[in-house]
């Protein structure tokens, strides 16, 4: 028995050492949104560790103290139905913990869904990120350029990614900048984030989307605003324009390296928002909808 416990401890130590070298991506945030989620994660790990340790300690004490080998042969365990105070405690404390975590969860969820704190007065840089099998297309409507499988963003600026998909559901995820969000074919979803230090960050599709899923990654390169502007000018000077034919070729299933174009595909292949959005079709607003239907029924009668 002792041998097995030693073995277990040994293995745990190895696991801790192995991972101790570098901070984990999610817990190494480079922007306010990811910092919020990292804080929430640390907070929950600490709270939860408290529960796990309580249970574990109780269990070990009980197992050691009440094992049969330690007790008299004629010991008859008592019959205990329950005790309102004890049961009150084991209900009460979890309720308090859940209330606490619920508040944290709600507050932080609202936080990461909106423009990052401190950037509210800025006009965000809007980038459309659309996925196709198995690539990411980044369109900058304002800068009028488009990139494939990599995206440049300015640091210390609010960036808004508008996500949608040209095929299966994918999930846009840059762990060091923000949590993920699905990109889907009939609606546009939004991620607000900001990068607070320059650097290159791993981004990927986190939702299984078929054969080429594992390699469906992209790079996010954050740099100061002036470098970003230079980069935009460079693209305009060097890259080819994106035509509908080229874009359709890009959409073919497969993998591509990193590409850049002038112009965006948004003009000839609009994203599914507004009147193009299947999702918004007649379901945007309840009262508006009822009035519409009301009108229809009036037509019927005349």
């Amino acid at each position, binding site marked *: 028995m002792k041998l097995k416990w030693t073995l277990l401890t040994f293995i745990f130590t190895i696991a801790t050492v192995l991972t101790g070298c570098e901070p984990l991506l999610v817990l190494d945030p480079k922007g306010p949104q990811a910092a919020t989620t990292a804080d929430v994660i640390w907070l929950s790990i600490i709270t939860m560790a408290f529960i796990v340790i309580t249970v574990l300690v109780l269990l070990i004490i009980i197992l050691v103290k009440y094992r049969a080998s330690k007790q008299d042969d004629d010991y008859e365990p008592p019959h205990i139905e329950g005790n309102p105070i004890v049961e009150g405690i084991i209900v009460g404390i979890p309720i308090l913990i859940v209330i606490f975590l619920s508040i944290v969860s709600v507050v932080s969820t609202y936080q990461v869904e909106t423009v990052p704190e401190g950037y509210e007065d800025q006009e965000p840089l809007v980038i459309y990120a659309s996925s196709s099998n198995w690539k990411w297309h980044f369109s900058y409507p304002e800068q009028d350029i488009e990139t494939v499988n990599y995206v440049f963003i300015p640091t210390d600026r609010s960036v808004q990614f508008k996500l949608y998909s040209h095929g299966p559901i994918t999930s846009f995820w840059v762990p060091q900048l923000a949590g993920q969000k699905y990109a889907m074919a009939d609606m546009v979803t939004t991620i607000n984030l900001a990068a607070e230090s320059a650097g290159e960050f791993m981004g990927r599709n986190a939702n299984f989307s078929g054969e080429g899923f594992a390699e469906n990654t992209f790079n996010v390169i954050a740099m100061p605003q002036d470098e970003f502007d230079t980069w935009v000018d460079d693209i305009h000077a060097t890259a080819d324009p994106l035509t509908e034919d080229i874009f359709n070729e890009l959409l073919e299933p497969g993998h591509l390296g990193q590409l850049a174009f002038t112009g965006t595909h948004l003009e000839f292949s609009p994203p599914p928002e507004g009147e193009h959005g299947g999702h918004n079709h007649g379901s945007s607003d309840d009262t508006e909808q009822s009035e519409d239907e*009301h009108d229809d*029924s009036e037509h019927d*009668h005349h």
Partner: protein
Amino acid sequence: MKELFPIKQVNGFIFSLLLTVVALSVYFMDMSFTAGMTILLVTAFVQAIVQFVLFMHAGESDDKRTIYTTLYYSALIALVTIFGSLLAMVWDM
């Protein structure tokens, strides 16, 4: 002959026809969406209760508690499913 048409059943039938007529008012009369939906909800659920209690004798056997629990439970979960799905898929998008 009369015992073949018990008054309870006949009344129930007439009542359910009446409910249908009331429900039809949303088609023939001009009213707001909210008023119409209210009428439909009331008539449909009253109609369902008439059928379950009067015609299907939900409460007549020793198992009536189980039967009513089944009905309440399924109604509750049905409503949660409908409104929860609408919330997640349509209203809060």
